[in-house]
């Protein structure tokens, strides 16, 4: 049975970061990611500064300094895609790899570029991890609404989040039922058995769809019975306070400094 906490990355703490207005956190996250992408290739000092920024936020949010670090290697497999930059940026050669009859020349700018891409991606993921660890998802959505994301989209996402766990439970039940009822053919898969399995999977998905669709009917009627007419309300008004503006300004200044360091220092 999938509990709501299975999908919830929020960690409850009483920290200054947790208490920050969600808008500031979202904006700083996006600006941080943007800042990293704007830094030139090989701006190691600035990237170090960015990492210190992350560590500082981790510490201030009472999550532990290594919190984001431990979870940050999610995007690593995608790094293989960028491997080709090692060979495709022209410049002074570093080493030459001989693979069978192929000759792959790793260039210095290629290596710099590859490592920079990895760094940017790694830092951005950590910032996103910190965002959802310190901000409850409904608050994130509310912040998006304040930041002029269309209300329809935010409402759809709100409903989706609300029913994610319900429907995932449903899907897991269907999968468990399949496990307990269908005999799996042993041995190598023939196209026929793959097609049969796909047919089964499609039936599962179709069942899930029908249950979801009919459930949404009941949900809508229930909400109408409770006074829903299109807008979702929250208890917390999420007003910006002076300290939110202050911390936002500090964050912005730090990022600007990182940009200066990255662009003007060797």
């Amino acid at each position, binding site marked *: 049975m999938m509990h709501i906490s299975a999908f919830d*990355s929020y960690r409850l703490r009483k920290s200054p970061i947790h208490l920050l207005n969600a808008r500031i956190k979202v904006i700083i996250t*996006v600006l941080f*990611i*943007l800042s990293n*992408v*704007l830094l030139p290739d090989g701006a190691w000092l600035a990237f170090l500064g960015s990492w210190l920024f992350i560590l500082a936020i981790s510490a201030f949010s009472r999550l532990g300094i290594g919190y984001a670090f431990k979870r940050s290697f*999610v*995007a690593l*497999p*995608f790094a293989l*895609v*960028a491997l080709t*930059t090692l*060979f*495709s*940026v*022209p410049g002074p050669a570093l080493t030459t790899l001989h693979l069978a009859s*192929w000759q*792959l020349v790793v260039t210095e700018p290629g290596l710099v570029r590859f490592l920079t*891409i*990895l760094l*940017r*991606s790694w830092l*951005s*993921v950590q910032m*996103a*991890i910190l965002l*959802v660890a310190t901000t409850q998802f409904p608050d994130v959505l509310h912040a998006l609404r304040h930041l002029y994301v*269309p209300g*329809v*989209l935010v409402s759809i*996402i709100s*409903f*989706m989040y609300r*029913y*994610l766990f*319900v*429907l*995932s439970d449903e*899907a897991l039940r*269907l*999968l468990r039922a399949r496990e307990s009822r269908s005999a799996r053919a042993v041995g190598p*898969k023939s196209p026929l058995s*793959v097609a049969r*399995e796909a047919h*089964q*999977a*499609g*039936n*599962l*998905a*179709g069942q*899930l*769809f*029908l249950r*979801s*669709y009919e459930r*949404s009917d009941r949900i809508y009627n229930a909400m109408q019975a409770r006074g829903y*007419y*299109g807008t979702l309300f929250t208890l917390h008004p999420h007003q910006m306070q002076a300290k939110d503006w202050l911390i936002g300004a500090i964050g912005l200044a730090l990022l600007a400094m990182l940009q200066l360091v990255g662009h003007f220092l060797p």
Partner: protein
Amino acid sequence: MIYTSTLLKPLAMHIPDGFLSVTIAILCWVITAIILLLAIARTRGEFSERQIPLMGVMAAFIFAAQMINFPVAGGTSGHLLGGALAAIILGPWAGILVMASVIIVQGLLFQDGGLLVMGANILNMGLVTALIGYGLYRGVASRSLHLRLSVAGIAAWLSVMAGALVTSLQLWLSGTVSLKIVLPAMLTVHALIGIGEALITVATLAFILRTRPDLLAPGEGQARAGRGWVVAGIILVVLVLLLSPIASINPDGLERVAIDLGFIRHSQTASSGLLRDYTIPFLGKTSLSTILSGLMGALVVVVVIILVVRLVGRRRSQSPKSPK
């Protein structure tokens, strides 16, 4: 999310932050934002407040449905991306909003895909897939069951291929990858993934058509309104099918066009020094995979053209059948 064995994971379509340049990321955001705003405007109406819970639940459905798998070969299993399916079931605009929501939640909550590049991810996995899925299906929505299912399957496969193509192009234009290596790899892998997508899409659609056909989106009264989608879908498919083999076989031509249009700097292309320093690696593999991609592309082009010709021919001679 498409789960394959770890080796193939880098070729999943959620692009993380840092892999696209600012220009490309912003460009994709602009395109995505325009289309999303359009979708919101189109789904607004007298029943819009009813539609929002429905679309939210449908988004949760797509997310949950992506967990339903079936074993394909070795340790891999086929999964659903859902763009074509969502568009066929819910209609194009609702399908687009639903897929966008799924991708946004995946990016925000699970870090599956970056935040700055989310516009590109929505474009690749939500918009392109929905357009192709709905466009092709709409053309045969009033035909026989078998034709509808076949076209839905082809549309699902094509949607995955188109998503892979656009993803590769974005990565290349950002200077992150070299096209001649990544494009054939992406296309070949997603040709296989697309088969899984096609199978589940067809099976799901068949189930729904069998049990509750009344729930499927386009009614007969919208026969005229759907034609633009069909045209747009077919144009996109043809572009994808022409671009993929050409770009795979001769990426230099594409690079030259990109340089002329100012998309990539000259230093990123194969200068004469680069070609001298290494022979283009995996010559054997690349040819084979591009030939395979090209063959598959050509085959599907032929099938699509046959379908289109029959479609146009029948529309002239017969009146549309009544809805099932």
